[in-house]
């Protein structure tokens, strides 16, 4: 089937739907803590990349990364006194480890991934960018769920002493400040993973698992759209005259969904009897084993003589 730039863009937007939806949902909260000096230049990077000549495009992110790292190094050196005035500005260093800057940096990275996913050329490129941006936006989503939960003040009061022991500066200690919810979310995640590994099950339920929000339906719908767009995009990529590929795609998708249902039921069953770590270990080891067997079974360069 002939691939046009428009159909490619539409299918890319389809694949990126979950990221776009989550981005739209969390941005009102995240904007309250973001540093303009950080996110405005970073948000403009993908657009700069689109308008400059093609042969310079690969340089944009590299230069941006170099600039960020140099600022960080200069700030560190100024703070430790290795570089004298006029660079000795402790505020610069403090700003970098401030929660505002951290949120701005991560959120900008998610945004860049989202835009790159929308304009990606390759079908799997957009999927990779979607998962990358969703990982960052997922953190924000988790923090927003926690922040909007009726139980948040209670959790906040319990975990406040822990947040103060961290080497991160907070502009405000008020519970209404979103940055605090962000850090508390990290603490909860860290505790969950720690207990999952050392006690066999998560000691605390993560915000995205336990807190239900109307937005869940949007996320679910977005993932379904993303899945369908991915399949459609792969179909468009294939040979134009081979309509018989569709049954093959359908069998793979339906088979995949059924198997994953069984896996989720299996995990749920183990989780209910307190063997969550064992279930997840089985799952992860199983996934890697499957991948390994697939790769080994089709060794590189193998040809069949007929």
């Amino acid at each position, binding site marked *: 089937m002939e691939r046009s730039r428009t159909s490619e863009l539409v299918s890319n937007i389809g694949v990126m739907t*979950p990221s776009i939806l989550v981005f739209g949902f969390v941005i009102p909260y995240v904007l309250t803590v973001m540093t303009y000096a950080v996110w405005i230049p970073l948000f403009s990077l993908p657009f700069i990349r689109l308008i400059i000549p093609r042969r310079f495009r690969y340089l944009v992110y590299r230069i941006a990364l170099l600039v960020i790292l140099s600022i960080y190094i200069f700030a560190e050196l100024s703070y430790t006194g290795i570089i004298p005035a006029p660079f000795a500005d402790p505020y610069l260093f403090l700003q970098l480890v401030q929660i505002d800057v951290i949120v701005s940096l991560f959120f900008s990275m998610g945004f860049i991934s989202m835009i790159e996913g929308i304009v990606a050329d390759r079908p*799997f490129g957009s999927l*990779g960018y979607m*998962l990358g941006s*969703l*990982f960052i936006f*997922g*953190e924000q989503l*988790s923090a927003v769920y926690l922040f909007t939960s009726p139980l948040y003040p209670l959790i906040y009061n319990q975990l406040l002493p822990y947040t103060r022991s961290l080497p991160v500066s907070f502009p405000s200690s008020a519970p209404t400040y979103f940055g605090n919810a962000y850090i508390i979310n990290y603490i909860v*995640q860290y505790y*969950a993973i720690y207990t999952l590994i050392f006690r066999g099950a998560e000691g605390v339920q*993560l*915000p*995205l*698992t336990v807190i239900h929000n109307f937005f*869940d339906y949007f996320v*679910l719908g977005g*993932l379904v759209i*993303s*899945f369908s767009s*991915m399949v459609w995009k*792969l179909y468009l*990529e*294939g*040979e134009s*005259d*081979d309509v*018989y*590929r*569709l049954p*093959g*795609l359908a*069998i*793979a*998708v339906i*088979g*995949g*969904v059924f*198997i*994953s249902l069984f*896996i*989720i039921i299996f995990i749920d069953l183990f989780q209910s009897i307190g063997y969550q770590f064992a279930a997840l270990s089985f*799952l*992860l080891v199983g*996934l*890697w084993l*499957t*991948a390994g067997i*697939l*790769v080994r*079974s*089709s*060794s*590189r*360069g*193998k*040809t*069949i*003589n*007929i």
Partner: protein
Amino acid sequence: MIRKTGLAIIAVMAASVYEAILLGFLYLLFFGIALMMAFWVDIVLFHASQSKKMKAVTIRRDLKDNYGRKNQWVTINLSVENSSKSRVAFHYFDSLSDVFRSRGDFKGYLTLMPGESRIISYEIAPQAVGKYYVGPVEMYAEDPFRICVLNYVAERITEIHVSPSLADLHGARADRMSNIRFTEGLHRSKSVGQGYNFYGIRPYTESDDLRYVSWSRYGTVNGEDLYVKQMEEERQMEVHFLIDYSLAVNYGYSDKRMYDRLIIDSINAAYSIIKNHDGVGFMLFSSDHDIYIKPARSDVSINTLERAVADIRPSGEFDLAAALENVRQKIRKSSLIMVMTPLSGSTHFSLSKSSLIQKGKQITVFIVEPSEFIDQSGLTEPYKKILRSQLMRRINTLKNDASMIRALGLNCYVVQESRLYARMVMEYQYGKIVG
């Protein structure tokens, strides 16, 4: 075989599962596992079914004649049949050497229903002389997700033997017909003997044959003096072309390949020579080839060369000393020998006295410089400058080599291929004169 993209996607999907666990994001967990399992089902089903299907595909290649001329279009028919009970779809391409120009479907995508057979036709035109292979037919099939690929090779290989094109020899034919260039005044020979052309008269001696007495001049001085007619003797020469047929001449691009041009130039020069009733012989020499075609005063030796070059391709290494030694052993008569080589193989010369001093043989070495065999069309100006400077260095080296060979007592010139034909004919003319 799973493609790099496939491997990347498996890694990304596994990472997404980790990500979902870390966030406690159940929907994303389900999404990641579902997509990964879909890929898994796809790969397993594809590997299980496609091999069986592809093994039931039979392929045959037919072509009218295995012998052809350069630039002549040859039609190839690929018969493909699906003898399985299910539909099979695959990409195919018939492996072709880069000397072939092609038109038609030598590659494409095929979907065959159970029992269906199809004939795919395409044409190829070789751009250089030699023996080339068409095939094997390579096929590959992709899974619906296009993350893995299976390669199948049908070992159907056909040999194609290519002789020089008539178009390349056209110049020489026109030359022979016009009789303007190069052949003008070639019959100048100062030797006196039996022949048809009158040379002069001289006083009669007792040993002279009475048949040659010029009775019309009898008694012109004192009434008793007798003269005999002197006739110009037609001396026939033998010219040998010794062509370096090592890997070093397998150099060039599309229709501008050194070995092909050396053969064409030799044949063109040979036609000019046989017009003068002189004999022409050929030697194709390298460590792998030692072909000697005996000289003939007709186009027999040229035809033999055309057949010989259609069966081989340049290979091995060329050594000037070994080549001259070969000349000494194979060519006993006096002869004009023209050696054509790019001289890229030998870095030093160990020419023995016996190979250098060969009685009655006039040896000329033409070192063909490489500049005309480099495709500069796609190069930008800076690269062209770099290339030019490298070529100048190479040509200077070759000129130094030529001086050294001349110092050893052989004629030696560094020539461009486009001037080789003219230089060879000039050398032949000179050989005729100095005899």
